[in-house]
């Protein structure tokens, strides 16, 4: 397993918060993430999972250590370059679905691709419908995003994260706001994304069942990695 392609790795990442007192929220984080891997980050509330994810996401740049995405050092890059990396390499899924309420579901999904400006408008539209089909929401395409149920909104958010075929999809509590049925749907989609499409997922969760079903689980406590589990050792691809 170890000779698989690395899509993201960290070297000694740490981060301080200064308010209200100086305090190290994450400390000396080192790990590699592989192509096609479904990785979960777990730990007690306040253990630093979200803080770490935001550092990995390139949105938070105030950290120590180094972050590499596809062997390329991203630490120290300019905000515009980071925005462009996020646009084409990283997809985000949040606990609160965070769709743009004035736009239709279709347009919510299309916007990151229109920003990428790699495909024509028609191609982008076509690709958005493909992603919606994958998530079984194509009949919602033209509804305003705010008119959908929570589970449907989360699937639109997943489609949006997938639209530019990013190498890595990052999620902070993606099922935190969903019932068990929708959680199951999201989980199955994640499995397919990793194992059929070969994209990497890094998901923060406190749902241990969800974590156990992923490929690998990293556990944090007080900002440090305390253990790493390979979950589905039986499945070899």
């Amino acid at each position, binding site marked *: 397993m170890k000779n698989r392609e690395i899509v993201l790795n960290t070297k000694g990442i740490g981060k301080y918060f200064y308010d209200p007192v100086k305090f190290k929220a994450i400390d000396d984080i080192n790990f590699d993430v592989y192509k096609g891997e479904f990785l979960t980050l777990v730990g007690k509330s306040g253990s630093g999972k979200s803080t770490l994810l935001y550092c990995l996401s390139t949105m938070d740049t105030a950290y120590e250590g180094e972050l590499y995405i596809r062997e390329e050092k991203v630490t120290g890059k300019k905000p515009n370059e980071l*925005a462009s990396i996020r646009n084409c390499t990283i997809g985000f899924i949040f606990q609160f679905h965070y769709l743009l309420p004035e736009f239709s579901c279709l347009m919510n999904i299309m916007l990151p691709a229109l920003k990428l400006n790699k495909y024509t*408008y*028609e191609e982008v539209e076509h690709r958005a419908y493909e992603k919606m089909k994958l998530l079984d929401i194509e009949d919602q395409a033209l509804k305003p995003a705010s008119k959908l149920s929570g589970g449907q909104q989360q699937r639109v958010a997943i489609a949006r994260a997938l639209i530019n075929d990013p190498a890595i999809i990052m999620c*902070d509590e993606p099922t935190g706001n969903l019932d068990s049925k929708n959680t199951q749907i999201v989980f199955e989609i994640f499995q397919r994304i990793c194992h059929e499409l070969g994209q990497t997922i890094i998901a923060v969760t406190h749902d241990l069942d969800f974590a156990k079903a992923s490929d690998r689980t990293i556990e944090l406590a007080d900002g440090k990695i305390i253990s790493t589990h390979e979950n589905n050792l039986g499945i070899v691809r």
Partner: protein
Amino acid sequence: MKRKANVEIAITHIVARRKQTFTAALGVTIGVGVYLFMNSLSAGFSKFSRDEIFKNSAHIKIYKNDEICSPFVPKSNQDNINVIVNPQITTLSKKIIDPENLLKVVKSQSYVTNAISQVYFDAFYNRGKAQIRGTGNGVNIIDYDAMFSTGKYMVAGSINNLQGNLNGIIIGSGIAEKLNLGINENITVSSSFGIVKVMKIVGIFTTGNSMNDQAKSYVNITTAQQFIKEGPSYVSTIFVNTPNADKSVYYAERLQQLTEYTVEDWKTTSADLLSGDKTRSTLMNSISLSILLMTAFIIYNLLSSTIMQKINDIAILKATGFSGRDVISIFLMEAIIMGLIGTIMGLVLGAILIWIMSGIYMGGPVGYFPISFELSLFTQSFVLGIVITTCAGYFPARNAANVDPVEIFRK
């Protein structure tokens, strides 16, 4: 409907919040409309008063100024007495010597479009015992008409009747009315030099300005010279027109090098009138500019509050790869769209106000309110409207670009 992402977002925001967009645009409309209207008022009035000035005065006039005599009278013959007198205006006549030659030199300058000479005299118009005081103007009426368009104001007779007619006179309608005289009738004119002539009225003019209509008359130069007992070398003033009235100071300086007589541009001559004019237009400009700045504040406020409400959306856009520059361009575009709608409506509003105003009759010499559609003012209002709304939009847009998505997602 196939647009770039930033344009798509800006337009969707604008359409989704059409009420606020419309309110902001309306603010701009009022600002730009009032700005355009007030500046047109001001420009129309300035043009009117300038035209009034040029009815009687050219861009530049050349005349002999009063001289103050020296306090010492030169020693006369044998007695060694120094005579000291109070400095005062000399009694030397205010004539221009060799006016023909000076006029020729002036006319030959490349920047002189027209030049004429004129002889003034104090005139008394008499009929029986009735007498009116006024000013007689000795002119070459054809040249004079070329400069001041006197022909336009004729209500009876014609300026051509005066040409070469040494006994002819054109009088203001006020004089004609008061003395109950009509065209082709005789009028007795006398001067302060005791010359009395019976002249034939060959024309009557009305300028609408009672000062002119009740006092002014035109005769030939030779006739005027006779009224003041002077020969053909006497001329009171030479009037000069140049291609550009606004550059008359510069032209006057050049003319001054050609003659020892006083060369004065119209801005110096009419300084009082112009300073009043300037005060008024400065006042109007500052009021209208303040209104326009209030417009900017409306846009600034509206966009700031929009951005506060949309802070989640901005965080999402940044998370999905939109850069700070994209965010600025989105919100700037929204400001510009509001500004564009508002400015165009403002130009329409201004045009309507100008149109209404131009139909209001003020009476007297003013007639209809002196206001017109000036393309330059429309352009100026348009540019200012867009520039101000863009600037007002830039600052909130920059704040939006600085939103830290992590801070938003963490809460």
